[in-house]
């Protein structure tokens, strides 16, 4: 029995996903660094940064799929955890600028000098250490999710109520971070980063390194999620998703299960945000906008909720489409397409891409992984 959990966790789809991700993490830097820039096979540094961004979105989508696809918690505020992780990373990067800022203040970031802050606020202490910042990247979103979830799940706020409350949460945070006296750079956010762990952030090598690290983080996140959803714990989560009251009557402490998975998911979103910030070079309060969180949910819906791989695929597909359409002459029509995507997916493709594929395979009598069938969110409908 001891070897089985590992096998169960790594079914054919999971292995395929990990192989693809690994290939991606090797191929993109290779084509960027080793192939000369004149060649047709060369991958530009712009694309490396772009793909790095997508990987971070993939991790965010994964964290949403874990709670939405398996525990039935639709959070419309996961962008907040993403942004909080990003801000924690941004604070570390701001402290790294040191005397190279416009005002050359060794301790205070530029915007604080500009706003005549006499000294560093208490909550900025410690961010000059990467270890501390890394801890905060996980801890701050996790703590917020824990407190928020504790209040919400304890009083059995579920379904759309929870969705709206989480949306209000990220909205409130956005309003707060827009204020200058919050001490996070207000409107402009944190930007103008110079180096990370002593390495210059603008080099090609650093961009590729960040991409590889993001891929590793995504793989780790994927394995954690797989471990959870294929375990007995995961089965309880699915039970909660399909009938919360029945699960409670069976003697499971539903709140504890939900709280754990919600907090874990927020930590993952925080890591995604932290990896995202050095790759785009800025974090500002608009990351908290409710629209961003809902957009992340639609990535999951497009790829297929409750499939994990689908969430990552959805993040890639939707964001690639977004990049493609918003950069061309079709830019004014992108919102029409995004809006249409929301409607089309919910009406026509409720299982998403991966979910529909698995459903089709299941219907055509092929041997089907039992864990997959349980994991499909539409099994109960």
């Amino acid at each position, binding site marked *: 029995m001891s070897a089985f959990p590992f096998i169960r966790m790594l079914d054919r789809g999971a292995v395929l996903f990990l192989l693809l991700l690994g290939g991606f993490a090797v191929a993109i830097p290779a084509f960027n660094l080793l192939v000369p820039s004149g060649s047709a096979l060369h991958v530009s540094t712009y694309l490396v940064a772009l793909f790095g961004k997508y990987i971070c979105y993939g991790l965010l989508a994964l964290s949403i799929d874990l709670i939405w696809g398996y525990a039935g918690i639709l959070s419309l505020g996961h962008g907040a955890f993403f942004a909080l992780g990003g801000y924690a990373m941004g604070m570390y990067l701001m402290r790294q600028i040191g005397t190279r800022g416009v005002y050359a203040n060794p301790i205070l970031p530029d915007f604080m000098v500009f706003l005549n802050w006499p000294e560093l606020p208490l909550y900025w202490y410690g961010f000059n250490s990467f270890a501390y910042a890394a801890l905060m990247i996980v801890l701050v979103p996790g703590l917020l999710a824990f407190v928020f979830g504790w209040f919400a799940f304890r009083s059995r706020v579920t379904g759309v109520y929870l*969705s709206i409350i989480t949306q209000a949460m990220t909205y409130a945070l956005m309003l707060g971070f827009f204020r200058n006296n919050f001490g996070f750079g207000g409107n402009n956010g944190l930007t103008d980063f110079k180096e990370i762990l002593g390495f210059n952030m603008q080099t090609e090598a650093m961009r590729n390194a960040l991409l590889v690290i993001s891929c590793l983080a995504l793989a780790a996140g994927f394995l954690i999620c797989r471990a959870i959803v294929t375990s007995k714990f995961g089965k309880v989560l699915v039970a909660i998703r399909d009938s919360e009251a029945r699960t409670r009557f069976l003697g499971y402490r539903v709140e504890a299960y939900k709280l754990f998975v919600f907090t874990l998911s927020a930590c993952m979103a925080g890591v995604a945000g932290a990896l995202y910030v050095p790759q785009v070079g800025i974090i500002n309060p608009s990351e908290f906008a409710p629209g961003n969180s809902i957009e992340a949910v639609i990535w999951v819906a497009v790829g297929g909720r409750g499939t994990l791989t689908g969430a990552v695929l959805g993040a890639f597909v939707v964001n690639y489409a977004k990049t493609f359409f918003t950069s061309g002459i079709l830019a004014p029509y992108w919102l029409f397409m995004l*809006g249409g995507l929301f409607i089309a*997916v919910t009406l026509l493709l409720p299982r998403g891409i991966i979910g529909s594929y698995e459903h089709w395979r299941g219907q055509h009598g092929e041997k089907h992984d039992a864990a997959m069938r349980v994991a499909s969110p539409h099994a109960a409908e």
Partner: protein
Amino acid sequence: MPKLNEMRVFNASLIALALVLGLSAAVVHAQSFDDALAKFAADSYGDTEEAVAAVAASGNEMAVPVIFALQDGRLLFDAKAKKIFIKELSGRILDAASGQPAAAAPADLELVRINNRLRRAIEAALGALTLLSPDPQKRLEAAQAVFKSRDEKTLPALDAAIARETNAKIKRALIEARAAVVLFWSDAAEAAKLEAVGVSRARGDQEAMSLLWSLPADAPPTVSRAAVSAAKAIQGQLEIWNGVQNAWYGLSLGSVLLLAAIGLAITFGVMGIINMAHGEMVMLGAYTTFVVQELIRTHNPALFDYSLLIAVPLAFIVAGCVGIAIERSIIRFLYGRPLETLLATWGLSLILQQAVRTIFGPTNREVGAPSWMSGAFEVGQLNITYGRLWIICFTLIVFVALLGMLRFTRLGLEMRAVTQNRQMAAAMGIRTSRIDALTFGLGSGIAGIAGVALSQIDNVSPNLGQGYIIDSFMVVVFGGVGNLWGTLVGAFTLGIANKFLEPYAGAVLGKIAILVLIVLFIQKRPRGMFALKGRAVEA
């Protein structure tokens, strides 16, 4: 408090300085005033003109009465003794130099004659003493300026102005200014000061209060005590007014919230549909108003005052039809799947926003206010604008109409039947799918009406609706789902709470505090303030 004391000491020393200067100046002034008066007796226009200027410049307390008397043709002179007299309206003769009744007025007094040139000079002299200006606005401004400067040299002019003033409002301002001067004039009698405290107390605003708090240290103890108690009384009164004002602003905000949320109370509260495109229905209503006003401007400007009345039914129809179309094409396939409905309607809101942006452009559109909605009036210390007042009235009218519709019409009855027990309603022969569409259309139509009102107080832009969607959901969740009264109470509670928090926390933090409070409130009552009880809960 130490700051206040310092200020008092500072004020006192200033006053002492002013007194020393004033006394030495007074000696000089007395001399020049008498010389100037003597010139009136020369019976030449040139000398009289010089005299007017000199008298006005002298700052003597008799300057104003003298110039007035001259203007009114009541200034007399004794050619032999070179003495000047003022004939009062009562017929009494005063000595112009002393202001005392003349003991023995000579019989052969002559009038100081004036011509047009002199009249202008007189007016200019009085203009310097603007308290006596013929322009009421100038007099009022002068009175307010004196209230702030508290210069005791203006007292004679003030007294003259008060005696002459016929405009009640300006007279009050003058009396209040005089009270302020008296309070700060160390030579004033105690009784006069006490009276002045009473006048300031009656004024009862922020300025009067700070005046009473900052009395000079040398004031008699009775006056100080009276001033402190008066200031405290004013403070109490001001706090009440402040509360009333916050309540009014809160009512105003609450009515806006209610307008935005009331349609949602139908679609979300009654039908259980999460319509994230609700804000866009509001936006459509606002743009309908814009289109109506544009058409009126180009075709028949005379109708402009009726533009909102025309826009209300049109906005209801436009938003209602869009709502029915949404229900038929999207939402009816998603009943029982609230999370999917949420996502689909969010997508719809993106499409509607972008559509409006494409048609009308991304910038704000100008929606004018009809004449009956502009302007304001004052109740005590409270300033009420007609626009806000109309919106509150309009909101209540819409609310009552909706309640009545649900309660007394056949459609309302069928709507309630379907939401309470769908199968039973269907068994009774109600076409439930038709009712679903109409109910959703009704909720959307009311959102459109809200857009007409919101076009008056907010920017009409494609993002108009987004600003209201979260607040509206908060109102419905807070008030309790499925209950219109809950929505009413929820909207006004949130509006008033917001406005009472704002002075302490600022607008943004106040809003955050409200959101946090709602999250905590939902802990206590997950189904809102007016939760449905019994069987209806799970239905």
